[in-house]
């Protein structure tokens, strides 16, 4: 018995020592090895662009001394990349967007945003509702009125799938206007480009998509943007009203951000807060925003956490029944 207790004591001492030393080395000068920036999509997409922009600016502005490597993990609407991130240590970060919330809400993924460490929200795009240049609908209100009248007669193009921000922004706008989103006649196209093509080809009566997809065509007069989801008029197309101008109380950002694996320490979060805050103030980052039609939407880790919670509640309402079917 005595021997047994002795062995037990010795073992626990070894474990405690090991655990302590493990902790100690973990906190020692973060970051201390190459940083991995996970883009949960193939090269060329929005997430990939965000990841590579981050890598470029952080490295060229010499904000981070360690090498930053962009890793592409496409699949499952971001799920493959985020699952990968979950298994890594704090030297891996991943780009995210609202899909990290909606995937779970629409039961397409087990991953919850709460499992990750929010690092920052970086930039946003705005959503646009566009119609052909010769459309009978001159304003967003007219469009919504007509839709409310006969939902089936108004074909709306969206892509690449239901439940993305393009789709959800119009779902929200419609429900704010008092239309049951279930009545909306959505045609699902392969991607943003196809949606615009369908609009220009007269196959659909309206499309909901990112502003950047339709902005140039609008300026060129090939189509007409009825409303943008921003809170203020957007540069270059100041004539386009916001949804709020149209009487629909909605601001819908299509944001992009960065998150880390679970259980990052306060110090590690503080490191990224200071580095990213510095980064967004550089001219190079401002140039990146301008080039991509992004808008600065920076929120630090703490603010991002609150923002995610708020967005989650919004999406949850949208996804369940838009609050219209409570009876």
């Amino acid at each position, binding site marked *: 018995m005595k021997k047994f207790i002795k062995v037990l004591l010795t073992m626990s001492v070894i474990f405690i020592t090991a655990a302590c030393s493990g902790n100690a080395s973990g906190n020692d000068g973060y970051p201390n090895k190459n940083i991995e920036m996970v883009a949960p999509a193939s090269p060329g997409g929005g997430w990939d662009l965000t990841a590579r922009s981050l890598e470029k600016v952080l490295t060229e502005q010499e904000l981070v001394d360690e090498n930053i490597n962009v890793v592409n993990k496409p699949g499952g609407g971001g799920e493959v990349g985020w699952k990968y991130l979950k298994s890594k240590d704090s030297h891996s970060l991943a780009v995210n967007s609202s899909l990290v919330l909606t995937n779970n809400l*629409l*039961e397409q993924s087990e991953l919850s945003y709460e499992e990750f460490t929010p690092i920052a929200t970086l930039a946003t795009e705005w959503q646009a509702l566009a119609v052909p240049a010769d459309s009978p609908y001159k304003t967003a209100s007219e469009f919504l009125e007509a839709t409310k009248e006969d939902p089936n007669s108004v074909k709306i*193009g969206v892509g690449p799938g*239901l439940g993305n921000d393009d789709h959800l922004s119009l779902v929200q706008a419609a429900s704010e206007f008092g239309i049951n989103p*279930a009545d*909306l006649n959505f*045609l*699902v196209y392969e991607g943003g480009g196809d949606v615009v093509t369908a609009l220009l080809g007269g196959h659909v009566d309206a499309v909901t998509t990112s502003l950047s997809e339709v902005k140039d065509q609008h300026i060129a007069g090939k189509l007409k943007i009825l409303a943008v989801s921003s809170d203020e008029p957007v540069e270059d197309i100041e004539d386009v009203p916001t949804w709020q101008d149209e009487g629909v109380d909605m601001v819908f950002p299509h944001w992009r951000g960065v998150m880390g694996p679970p259980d990052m320490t306060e110090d590690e979060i503080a490191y990224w807060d200071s580095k990213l805050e510095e980064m967004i103030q550089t001219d190079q980052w401002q140039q990146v925003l301008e080039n991509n039609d992004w808008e600065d939407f920076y929120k630090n880790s703490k603010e991002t956490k609150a923002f995610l919670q708020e967005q989650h509640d919004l999406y949850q309402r949208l996804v*369940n029944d*838009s609050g219209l079917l409570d009876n």
Partner: protein
Amino acid sequence: MKNRLQVSLHIKILGLVGTLLLLVISLITVMVGYMESREDVANAENLALQTAKTISYMPGVQDAFRSGATLEELKQLTEQIREEAGASFITIVDRSGGVIGTAKDETVAIEETVTASEKELYQAMVFGSSYVFETGSEGGEVLKGVAPVTIDYGDYKKVEGVVTVDFPMKVIHNEILSDISKIILAAGLVFLLGIAGSFLLAKSIRKDTLGLEPFEISALYREREAVLQSVKEGIVAIDHQGVITTMNVAAKDLLDIRREEVIEKNIIDVLPSRELINRIQSPNKTINKELEYKDKIIIVNTRPLIENGRKTGTVASFRDKTEIKKMVDALSEVRQYSEDLRAQAHEFTGKLYAILGFIQLGKRQEAIELIQKEANLQKQVSEMFFSQIHDEKVQAILLGKFAKASEKKISFKVEEGSSLAPLPDHIPLSPLIVILGNLINNAFDAVKDCDSPEVSFFVTDLGNDIIFEIADNGNGLDKGAEYQIFHRGYSRKGNNRGYGLANVKEEVYSQNGAIEVNSSPGKGTVFTVIIPKQIQENNKRAGG
């Protein structure tokens, strides 16, 4: 014994094992049951979802939506699927919520077929999600799988309708119940087996313990321990590694081991004598082997315990040879006294015959002279004894020695001025026998070759001490021998002797006394023994 709770081994083991088994088995049963029911529900959910999805993808359904087929055409198809999957209710609705296909299990009551509400179909309709949920009224709960019917029109896709598949929870619950009852049955069996096993275990233990209950064994053990501790013989037992398993008090005393904890210590660390350790650890048994240990001679017996040809331990016993020797000496001393008295009796008989002879011959004068001479001699002896030496123990010893002296023609005198009151009770007979017997015998031995052998005895108890003085007129000791004579084994009488003076010294010391020797060559030797009258206490001695 009876006032304490004495449960038999059977009950104890059955109770303990039974409780433990019950605990473990119920825990496992609950866990397995919980997991099993979760799995049953998950399986049912999966089935509902997959059935709904399958129907939504079926070409017939897809075609019906494309071409606007009638309810009748779909009826057979959905009925067939419903049958195969075991669902209770299937509906296919279009975007406006109109039912275009349905199939229902006729055995299910109408109120248990619940048409999905608009809210329940919202996610499928708006977002094209597939999901499963529980719904329905109390008693008629169903698991509802929902899947959108997405039609691919080439350029674009569109959610055109929704399929819902119902599985009654009652069926699922029944399945869970039957699973759980199987588990409980298995658990019950294991429990019975466990009880039977513990019963056998208890029986087997009882067999090993010769049918004794544990408390009886512990009582026996305590008794054995008490017996072991009470015997005078030193007993040590070691196991095959030399670790001490038993050592009684006598062994500790005899082997002069001061440390308290010896059990579970290795014998090599406890005993200082290499020879003794070798003897104990040897695979052969030892019988009555005498060994020198510290300044004692001990008699060692060892007995290795052999089990299946392997040595599993050794039991060793020790006796103090010195002590035995002392006993033997005292015994032979006593025997000597009776021998001597017999010799004296014989002498007296001879003298009586002489007197009888004188009387018969009519030589009265000679007879009277002989009687007077003897009477004087006896008177002198008895006067000396009985007037001066009042202690009966010393009287007895001296009487014996007188007899021996007269037999050996040695003049043995008690010096004038000797006096001895009865000795205090704390001085027992046996040390006196050893001290006086040995010293007087030695003196007799020393004078046996002299022309006029004389040994004198003097005793006085004036003052605080009793002083004995035994003087002889022998040849005296060799120069320097004063220091050796008290050592064990020193003797001029031959081998295996030399215990006498050593024992004398030991006994004198045991009475807190002192012994001195004074010898001049050719003139004789004087031994002086001083024994305090009172039991010594350190402060008294310092004060006096």
